[in-house]
């Protein structure tokens, strides 16, 4: 494998506990309380990650704009994606609405973020 792949290396054996240049920190921990109404479940998480989430959503929008450089088309898609949310199953649709409202971004942006696996599997 090493002969074929210039980036491959010998199996690493002393990487744990994580440290060094390949380690960039732990994932912060949150509780999602399923006893809350769906619209309220994600409020704390997304408010704390509001700026970072907005950057990701803008990045996704920029990628779409690269392929389809038409702002009007994007605006039209955003409103259609807002409609798509109403067709998603409960409680996911309500949770997505709660996220959009908590961080004050268009509903369509949060919908696209939540279905990007289906979009990118081509």
């Amino acid at each position, binding site marked *: *494998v090493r002969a*074929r*792949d210039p*980036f*491959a*290396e*010998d*199996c*690493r054996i*002393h*990487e*744990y*506990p*994580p440290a060094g*240049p*390949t*380690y*960039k*920190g*732990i*994932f*912060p*921990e*949150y*509780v*999602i309380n*399923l*006893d809350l109404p769906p619209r309220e479940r*994600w409020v704390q*998480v*997304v408010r704390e*990650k509001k700026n*970072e*989430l907005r*950057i*990701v959503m803008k*990045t*996704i929008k*920029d*990628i779409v704009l*690269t392929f389809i450089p038409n702002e009007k088309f994007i605006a039209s898609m955003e409103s259609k994606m807002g409609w*798509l949310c109403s*067709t*998603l*199953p409960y409680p*996911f649709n309500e*949770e*997505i609405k709660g*996220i959009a409202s908590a*961080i004050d971004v268009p509903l369509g942006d*949060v919908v696209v*973020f*939540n*279905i990007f*696996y*289906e*979009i*990118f*599997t*081509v």
Partner: protein
Amino acid sequence: CTSIIAQDKTGKLYHARNLDFGLFLGWDVQNSSWHTTQKLKPIMVSLDFQKNNKTVFKSANFAGYVGIISGVKPALFTLTMNERFSLDGGYIGILEWLIGKRDGWWMSFLIRTVLENGTSYEEAKDKLANTKLLAPAYFILGGNKLDEGCIITRSRSAALNIKYLDTKKGNWFLVQTNYDPWKPPLIIDDRRNPAINCVNQTGQEKIALSDLYNVLSTKPMLNKLTVGTTLLEVSEGHIESYLRDCPNPCSPW
């Protein structure tokens, strides 16, 4: 992505994954990294889904992403999903959904439903194998009993193949990347054989979560697309997740 399930000599199951995302979604020349991959790292979170103040399941997630791609249901099963590329892809499922044909499941919503409501490894396997999906996927499912582990290769409509752990035949671990298990991986993206090689080098006598972390820290399993590494252990319902970086020289995928 690279997912691994391994079983030690006592029958204890370990599950780990590298989450790789952002291929062809913009290359940052200055920092030698994928644009989207870098932007996703700050929104990674570890979530504990609770009812009545008790854990129902735990996951490693993107903040604000209501579906699940990696999770553990304590004492019952662990589950990760790897992306499966296909011309009969998710965009067809989305188009069908838009025109009103809505009998398929959104992949990450199915995983969350299985983690939230699942009562056994077998039930989870059955749901993941037989529920119609909008997009193809690989489901990597581990249980809590001897040889409970499998890779389910899914098209949008059916399970194309289920590959099982089978210690009697010497198959004490499973490795899944982004290629069908019965086909060779793309020659310029072979993470499967290096991962198999490293798990074999560790050996069943020694294998533990820390060793799976070592395997997933080895290039090319660790690459420029790697957002994070998640380690899962079912009996304790344990999950730990780490943000990763792949300093140069490092494979772009």
